[in-house]
């Protein structure tokens, strides 16, 4: 079956998303001339493949539970926000809050991601080939992040159970984030994540594991007390 083509130059965002939602499982679609349009391919529950043919705006592929989406360009804020299942692959860079609150599925950024990537991650997987900006992984509760480049300041601030692997340098760790020894199990996980991402520049045994020190888990009544 030939892919369905939908042009942002002719259709509203609602019309495009309704047409995508009506596709049967196994179908494919191309979204043309996105020109930074927000909210493309959001809230889809069908098993379809979607190619977005250019630079997309905010919330691309958000709330999805099924489709595999490829953006042939860069994306604005919050790509794959609250993703439940399926995947969003971005061929270029991503702006802030990539994969915010995603519960499942995989978000792959082939370029860099800006600040707050993986904020409040709830079980999804975020793979970034390049760098991430400041406060990435902030309050991430569950899930995995693999950063192929460098991480900005305050990485993993107030982490819960999510784990972040960084191949490059870390500008600074956030509160309650710490680096931990890399186990063989970690190396196997990183190998698998790099394979899913299609990243061949990462040496799985040479990444840094960042996880929660869990000192903020319980209220310390004596903290900062002088007496």
């Amino acid at each position, binding site marked *: 079956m030939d892919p369905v083509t939908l042009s942002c130059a002719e259709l509203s965002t609602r019309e495009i998303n309704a047409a995508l939602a009506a596709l049967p499982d196994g179908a494919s679609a191309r979204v043309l001339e996105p*020109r*930074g*349009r*927000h909210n493309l391919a959001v809230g889809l529950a069908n098993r379809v493949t979607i190619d977005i043919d250019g*630079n997309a*705006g*905010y919330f691309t592929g958000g709330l999805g539970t099924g489709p595999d989406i490829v953006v042939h360009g*860069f994306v*604005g*804020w919050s790509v794959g926000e609250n993703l439940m299942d399926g995947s969003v692959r971005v061929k270029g*860079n991503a*702006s*802030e809050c990539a994969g915010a609150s995603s519960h499942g599925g995989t978000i792959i950024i082939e370029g860099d991601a*800006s*600040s707050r990537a993986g904020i409040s991650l709830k079980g999804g997987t975020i793979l970034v080939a390049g760098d991430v*900006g*400041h*406060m990435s992984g902030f309050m991430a509760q569950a899930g995995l992040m693999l950063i192929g480049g460098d991480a900005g300041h305050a990485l993993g601030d107030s982490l819960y159970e999510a784990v972040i692997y960084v191949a490059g340098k870390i500008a600074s760790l956030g509160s309650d984030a710490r680096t931990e020894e890399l186990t063989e199990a970690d190396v196997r996980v990183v190998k698998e994540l790099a394979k899913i991402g299609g990243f061949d520049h990462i040496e799985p045994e040479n990444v840094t594991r960042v996880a929660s020190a869990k000192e903020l888990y319980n209220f310390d009544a004596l903290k900062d007390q002088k007496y």
Partner: protein
Amino acid sequence: MCGIVGLHLKNPDLQPRLGELMTLMLEAMTTRGPDSAGIAIYADSLEFPEPDLRYSLRAEADVDWDVLGKTIAADTGSEVRVRRLAADSAVLESPAREAMFLAAVKRAGADVTVAGWGRAMVLVKDVGAPADICARYGIPSWGGYQGSGHTRMATESAVTTKHSHPFAPAADLALVHNGSFSNYATVRGRLARAGIQFDTDNDSEVAARLIAARMAEGSGLDDALRTVLREMDGFFTLLVTTRTQFAVVRDSFACKPAVIAETADYVAMASEYQALARLPGVADAVVFEPMPEEIHLWTR
């Protein structure tokens, strides 16, 4: 929420299209700021004699601009040339000394204000949808080498023309702001005690006046922006333009968006990429987000 756009042309061949491109950019940011908009356009004009300045005037009601021009000419003892933009807006050109001209405008009519002035800059702002405002002043046909614009969704102060951006408190200086300053009352108090007067209770005007005050003391635009980073607290993406410079700065959290596209022909800046998507050659531009607390500055 507000929208910011700016265009700094490197290739003079694009100058006749500045107004058209700025209009496209401003319209694309309507969703971020539907209640009012403003635009500052910088243009060289070879026939414009030194040391004349052009003053962008705005009235609360319709004004006979020729009569007002004559009143100001008599008051300042200098020639005044009048270019009417609309019943409530005009550009007046005069060789009078800046302070004398500004005082004469105040004396001429209580409901006429100077939105901005300078050698190169003309500034219009108004309440309403960005597309209507651009059409009203014929912005698409304006040429120039640099522009900044703003679409406003008011949070900190009233929806009026005076409260809309750009804020232009010194010759050829214009500031547009997305965000909100939290300590602006404190900074305004300090500036007011130093004798600086304010037109509005708006938070963005405080940043504009702070920059103007530093530059009046001899600081460069980059140093003045470092003062903003040091002294002003809050969320901000700022685009600040002078006769020769185009600068973008964001606060340490950088949670107000900004994207820059640079080509051999221009530097373009906007809150969202949508505003840049229809610029010529943008597909080959270097597109990036300005980093927090970094000053990105281009000089003509």
